[in-house]
């Protein structure tokens, strides 16, 4: 098991790996989108513009499948950001992981990395620097909390009466059950994404130990991991949209 490069700065435990990887993900996502809109053209779209338009239309269809697109138009940006961010994040850990063996009391920015504190001389801590940010449960939890807060905020803001009423339906005795249901959504989101990507990275580590015999397995698993990365990004986005749709629509409207 690898440790995270955590330093204690002013009372905060800062996970340098998470910070670096989040930064890299954000920069790559932003650069990708920025690149695709560099030469926007109405008449003669470039290839990358076509690709980005395909992504936008994909997200539009995804939102349209969960709610009325007229209402869902406001969430296209959110869906796009989510799907691109998670997809990029999922892929970052695929080509390589960066692990260093650090001696005892190794310091960064003048602060010791927590995992190396208290090691005997000659012992090393395996510190994981480069990985998929989504292979860290804190980060998937962060994304899920964003979704959770947003869903509840939108439910209260746009659909207050029905949103509050659904907690005591069909009877008031279901109130705890409905609360648990509501809380389970972000937990499920976070754990599903984390577990899929983390398992992928663990398996990559295992295959690496096979040496040369592992090359065909590695090729297959890398391909499959790309598929899983896309799939998980898609699932996270569509579930977000489903939750928003559930919280903001009147159930009577469907009858």
């Amino acid at each position, binding site marked *: 098991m690898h440790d*995270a490069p*955590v330093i204690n700065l002013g009372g*905060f*435990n*800062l*996970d340098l790996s*998470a*910070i670096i990887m*989040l*930064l890299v993900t*954000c920069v790559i*996502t*932003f650069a990708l*989108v*920025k690149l*695709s*809109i560099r030469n*926007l*053209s*109405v*008449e003669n*779209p470039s290839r990358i*513009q076509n690709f*980005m*338009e395909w992504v*936008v239309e994909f997200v539009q269809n995804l939102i349209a499948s969960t709610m009325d697109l007229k209402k869902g138009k406001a969430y*296209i*940006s*959110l869906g*796009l*950001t989510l799907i691109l*961010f998670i997809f990029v994040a999922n892929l970052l850990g695929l080509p390589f992981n960066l692990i260093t063996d650090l001696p005892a009391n190794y310091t960064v920015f003048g602060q010791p990395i927590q995992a190396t504190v208290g090691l005997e001389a000659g012992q090393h801590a395996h510190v994981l620097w480069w990985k998929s*940010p989504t292979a*860290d*449960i*804190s*980060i998937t*939890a*962060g*994304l899920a*909390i*964003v979704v959770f807060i947003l869903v509840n905020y939108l439910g209260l803001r746009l659909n207050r009466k029905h949103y509050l009423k659904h907690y005591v339906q069909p009877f008031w005795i279901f109130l705890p059950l409905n609360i648990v249901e509501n809380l389970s959504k972000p937990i499920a989101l976070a754990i599903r994404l984390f577990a899929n990507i983390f398992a992928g990275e663990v398996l990559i580590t295992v295959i690496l130990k096979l040496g040369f015999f592992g090359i065909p397995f590695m090729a297959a698993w890398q391909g499959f991991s790309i598929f899983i990365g896309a799939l998980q990004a898609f699932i996270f986005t569509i579930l977000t949209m489903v939750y928003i749709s559930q919280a903001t629509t009147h159930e009577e409207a469907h009858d």
Partner: protein
Amino acid sequence: MHIYWENILITIISFILLYFLLQKYAFNKLFSIMEQRRELVMNQLAEAANSKKAASDYVEEQRKALEQARLEAQGIIETSRQTSSAQADMMLEQAKEESLRIKDEALRDIESEKNKAVAALRGEVGRVSVQIASKLLEKEIDEKSNEGLVDQYLKDVGSKS
């Protein structure tokens, strides 16, 4: 694997930051261009539909003109057929009349020839019967004085027969 609340916080902040940055600097432009492209395609589709409609109208018009021309040709053929058949009828009629006339003429000729022959025969018969009578009676009868008698007699016989 520890869960650090600082990580969660950093993730939330960075995600929201990314969302707003993308929204402000990228997506708005992209969406507006996509909207323009949609309109362009819509316009082109409408244009195509219009020109298709015009083309089909034109074809329809041409078809009607062709139909008209065909009808006219038919009319012309019909008229000429009628004219020619009337002409043929007239010629036939004329020929019939001509033949009838020729036949009548021929009949009249025959009749007059017959009458001539009858008259000639009658003269001959008179003469012969006088000779026979004079021979039979062995009586001399003046041919001239009796000719009127014989004529009278023969005329009576002819009208009775």
